């Protein structure tokens, strides 16, 4: 209720205060809004756009969406060609890429005015900040989690320790799952730089430093991949041919294909696990050797940004505010981009959530005090190349084409090159 009141109040204020604000004038304008994602996200987003257009008859919103690889390629080409959309969806690599290539509008002037942020946790907002300014808004909240098949783990006699696993116990338990059930304990998680990032945080290090340099050494990666190599030898993790197809999607997940009994993932993918997995799933925090550092982040799964070249920034900011803060819009969007960033909206959505959405809400409520702010998780320009390079070299390692130490050295060498170091 309060939010609605605040919204309408702010709306009327902007409407009568500024004559230069082209949104309040009668002039019709069209803005373009693009995102990537699957059908359910698209349907929800279109519904919200229609609600927005009803409230702002002078603004028309053109929407476009596609799969991620096509999206990035098209968007990059459009921006380079001077035809950037007004409002765009970003992730960590693209945010770093576009922000540092000065393609994103500084949203700071809108913050607290047409773009309200008081209900969005600072830890989440931090993820969209760079050089002290707000360049992007978090579209939701996600964090890392460990998804496992309850029945298989029960059959193997493995239960999650009360205060969480240490990596050593974890490795032993995953081996136990394999020896008792014949199925790999967990999906080999060495391929994704994301999970390595969590591990680094647990050890007080980070992937990238705040001045956009590489934050880890060859030795760190060697230690991490060696831990996985010994698990692989015990068949506690999936075989190379099952690991290589991992891309974070449920469609290619080894857990869903019943090649492994558990997986490390982002909780924003729980909904797709639940709809595709046959069996009962449980959720746990990541293993950690540290009592204080869980290595888990309060991350926006995706961000929204406004293009620097946009000639309708005010209208884009209005739409952005509507998406983030309007309770009805929040209800329509649900957890299609993680749980809503606005804490009031999140509360309403979570209280009425069912099945998978509820699991995400419950999990986040349980681990909320263990999450680190997202500003320490910022990815710089060049990070998308590093991410794919990381996975490619890990393939060399698991297929025996390269040793762990040679692979780690190669990752660091290439990463430094990608960062222009």
């Amino acid at each position, binding site marked *: 209720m309060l939010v609605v009141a605040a919204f309408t109040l702010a709306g009327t204020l902007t409407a009568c205060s500024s004559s230069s604000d082209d949104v309040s004038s009668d002039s019709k304008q069209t803005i373009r809004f693009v995102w990537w994602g699957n059908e359910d996200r698209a349907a929800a987003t279109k519904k919200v756009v229609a609600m927005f257009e009803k409230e702002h008859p002078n603004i028309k919103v053109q929407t476009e969406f596609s799969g991620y*690889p096509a999206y*990035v*390629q098209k968007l*990059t*080409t459009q*921006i*380079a060609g001077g035809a950037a959309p007004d409002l765009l969806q970003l992730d960590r690599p693209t945010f770093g*890429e576009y922000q540092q*290539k*000065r*393609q994103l509008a500084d949203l700071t002037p809108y913050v607290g005015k047409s773009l309200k942020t008081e209900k969005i946790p600072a830890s989440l907002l931090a993820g969209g900040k760079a050089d002290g300014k707000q360049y992007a808004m978090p579209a939701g909240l996600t964090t890392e989690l460990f998804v496992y098949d309850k029945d298989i783990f029960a059959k193997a006699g493995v239960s999650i320790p009360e205060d969480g696993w240490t990596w050593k116990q974890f490795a032993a338990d995953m081996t136990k799952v394999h020896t008792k059930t014949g199925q790999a304990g967990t999906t080999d998680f060495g391929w994704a730089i994301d999970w390595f990032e969590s591990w680094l945080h647990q050890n007080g290090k980070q992937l990238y430093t705040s001045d956009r340099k590489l934050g880890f050494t060859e030795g760190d990666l060697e230690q991490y991949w060696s831990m996985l190599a010994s698990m692989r030898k015990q068949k506690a993790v999936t*075989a*190379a*041919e*099952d690991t*290589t*197809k991992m*891309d974070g999607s449920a469609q*290619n997940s080894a857990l869903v*294909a019943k*090649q492994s009994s558990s997986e490390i993932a982002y909780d924003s993918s729980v909904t797709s696990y639940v709809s595709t997995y046959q069996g009962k799933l449980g959720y746990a925090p990541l293993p950690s050797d540290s009592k204080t550092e869980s290595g888990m982040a309060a991350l926006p799964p995706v961000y929204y940004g406004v293009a620097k070249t946009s000639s309708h920034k005010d209208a884009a900011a209005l739409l952005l505010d509507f998406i983030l803060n309007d309770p009805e819009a929040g209800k329509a969007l649900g957890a299609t981009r993680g749980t809503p960033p606005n804490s009031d909206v999140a509360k309403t959505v979570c209280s009425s959530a069912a099945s998978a959405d509820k699991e995400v809400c419950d999990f986040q409520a349980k681990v909320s005090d263990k999450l680190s702010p997202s500003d320490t998780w910022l990815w710089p320009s060049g990070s*998308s*190349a590093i991410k*794919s390079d990381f*996975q*490619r070299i890990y*393939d*060399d390692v698991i*297929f025996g*084409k390269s040793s762990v130490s040679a692979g780690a050295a190669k990752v660091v060498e290439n990463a430094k090159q*990608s960062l222009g170091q």
Partner: protein
Amino acid sequence: MPTIARARSVGERAEASAAKVPAQPPQRRRQRSGAAYVFLSPWLIGAALLTVGPMLASLYLSFTDYNLFDTPRWVGLRNFERMFTQDDRYWNSVWVTVKFALISVPLKLAVALGIALLLNKPRRGTAFYRSAFYAPSLLGASVSVALVWRSLFGSNGAVDHFLGIFGIHVGSLVDQPRYALLTVIALAVWQFGAPMVIFLAGLKQVPSELYEAAALDGAGPARRFFSVTLPMITPVLLFNLVLEIIQAFQSFTGAFVIGSGRGGPSDSALLYTLYLYQRGFNNFEMGYASAMAWVLLVVIAIITVLLFRSSRKWVFYAGEGTR
């Protein structure tokens, strides 16, 4: 050379008639050529704006460092230098592409010729079989077929199950560095329809008296094939070979989809164009990608020239014998 001689005489006649044209007022000729340019203009504009322009731009970019956002920075030959001397993945992609071309092209042509021979004989339902065998070529370049391929050869795919009947357990072929390229080759070979149709046309041109004469001389089917059919269709063979080699070097979609967009596990199916794409669109190194594209163009040109040169030794044009 009866056909060529005839063509020449037709040409001469045309020239002769053209020579008489000056009798017409020159103005009218100019008008006529003007009309020709008007009709050609859509093509000319398209060629200039969509082909020549971008090609020149890419030639310029190949000497620059260009990330799509900042202005291109001139680096001279550094892209080429880096490509040839410092980039292991570049040489790996060259090697994968050569392997792909060397295996897929002969196999594809052999299958195309074999099926064309079978379909050349009048049988019931030939028309149906011809279209059925041609269909994959129409669908071939599409992403959906490559996706089907991936699931056929993937984990729990049909191929895995089929081999399982014989007690062979290979798992997912597309996800193993040893086999990934083979599945891409299999997809390329499966699309043998286009060369098959061209072979069929060539086979129809072989004069039946040659077969009759060969049969009278007591030549069996194998002898007839190697002494009559094969020499008579060498022009078509050359045409198919050139076309397929060029296509093999530019092949992209199959490997892109089957290799999950990365070029297979551990770069095992990383074709040249795929690596070019990764450099350009994943790493935003448009200058480097342009340099790679120009090297590919030059290499394809050289291979084509060499093929045409060698063709003097093995391609037989009808009519040559009467010389």
